[in-house]
């Protein structure tokens, strides 16, 4: 492999750049000194501007196409693939979007993907949690292009300002020609004054140890309110009916790795 150059797929909603991108850039900078960002969207000029400000970024590649407006996996993967060969590493934050699109890219490149890395050991070796964080595996990839999703809480974000990357516009033809098979219908986002769970540094959590749904409302919610934090819930799938279904915390659910979690009255969380 020749020079190490990383490509980070920006996480955004066409309006603003999501902070998780900064964590992915941090991981990329530990791999290579040259890091480019792909902003694939529709009318995402503001996002591209913001991406250009990120400290340490060399170049922003901006692709505008109606096919990319909703970040659907098929057109987005095609767009990434059109420039993939220029890079040694392709990274995205391990968000719903990143996890959705990158394995498609990896399969088309006929390479493995490294999911949810928490540490860069060397440009080809990474640490990642397995068994829901009950073990940490050190994994080495022999593939020519490494496709990686980054566990955002594993890396401190780089500064959002201070950089001065050039913005290069590229055509969205690759995305447009792959846009027919799926279409976007609608989105229903929960509005909350609290930080999103995936981005939160601290999560208040409580579960079975509390005994009942009322107890949960009595203890966890006021604490979270007192702190202005999001709260999560340690439940088994079978118990979701008993407890207020705020979100799921536990083995098969989504996984967060905040700096601190306070499991209330839960003597030994069996599987966080």
């Amino acid at each position: 492999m020749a020079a190490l150059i990383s490509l980070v797929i920006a996480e955004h909603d066409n309006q603003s750049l999501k902070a998780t991108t900064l964590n992915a850039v941090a991981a990329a900078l530990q791999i290579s000194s040259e890091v480019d960002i792909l902003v694939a969207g529709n009318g995402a000029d503001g996002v591209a501007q913001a991406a250009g400000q990120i400290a340490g970024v060399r170049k922003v590649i901006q692709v505008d196409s109606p096919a990319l407006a909703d970040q659907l996996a098929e057109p987005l993967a095609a767009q990434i693939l059109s420039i993939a060969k220029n890079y040694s590493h392709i990274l995205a934050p391990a968000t719903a979007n990143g996890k959705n699109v990158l394995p498609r890219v990896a399969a088309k490149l006929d390479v493995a993907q490294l999911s949810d890395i928490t540490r860069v050991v060397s440009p080809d070796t990474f640490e990642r949690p397995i068994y829901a964080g009950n073990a940490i595996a050190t994994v080495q990839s022999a593939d020519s292009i490494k496709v990686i999703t980054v566990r955002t809480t594993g890396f401190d974000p780089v500064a959002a300002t201070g950089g001065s990357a050039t913005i290069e516009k590229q055509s969205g033809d690759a995305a447009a020609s792959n846009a027919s098979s799926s279409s976007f219908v609608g989105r229903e986002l929960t509005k909350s004054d609290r930080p999103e769970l995936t981005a939160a540094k601290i999560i208040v959590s409580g579960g079975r140890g509390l005994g009942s749904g009322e107890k949960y409302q009595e203890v966890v919610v006021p604490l979270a309110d007192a702190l202005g934090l999001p709260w999560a819930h340690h439940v088994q799938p079978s118990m979701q009916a008993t407890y207020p279904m705020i979100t799921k915390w536990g083995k098969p659910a989504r996984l967060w790795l905040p700096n601190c979690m306070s499991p209330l009255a839960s003597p030994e969380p069996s599987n966080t």
Partner: protein
Amino acid sequence: MKILVAVKRVVDYNVKVRVKSDNSGVDIANVKMSMNPFDEIAVEEAVRLKEAGIVTEIIVVSAGPTQCQETLRTALAIGADRAILVESDADLQPLAVAKILKALTDKEQAQMVILGKQAIDDDSNQTGQMLAALLDIPQATFASKVVIADGKATVTREVDGGLETIALTLPAVITTDLRLNEPRYVTLPNIMKAKKKTLEIVKPEELGVDINPRLKTLKVEEPPKRTAGVMVADVAALVEKLKNEAKVI
């Protein structure tokens, strides 16, 4: 419509895994093994689609050692029609499994493939997406609701901060999230019936796919240890401790 469901045999979700002392991996000798919970949801969804008259045949597939037959029998007891085991003792990584599933989807001419979004052992969350890419068909990951009508699948997906609905033209790949359904308990009569259903065993070589592992696990370690907790009287005391003792806020 024929539907393919992929299931993986994993360490049961109630088992607390231990890292081997030589750090070569996780100790899974004499540990209870079960069907990956997300895959169970996938089988249940397929059976519900069949009960609704949308699906005509459910083929359940697993790739791994010979013991995966037990997992396949469980899927047959939930309601799948027949099973295929791709038998291999090799370390099967997501890309290899995706290639195996592609070969079988092509062979069986399945219109839809449902998989769990991730296995609870390696937590990769890749196989479904990789399969969709290899087949060049659309995907809907993290599904919490699936509606099939007029050759289209309308799928509600769990994304960060809420839900998103997309429409796919079939054939398509769907991966399940926790809220999609609650799998039924298998009954004894169904377990007996499952024993009579067909279970075909093939080798990866017969499918002509490259299953060589691409990733090498150098070592597996325990995560940092958690220290013992203390009881606090009320919320105020906890906030106080978090601020001044633990200094996390």
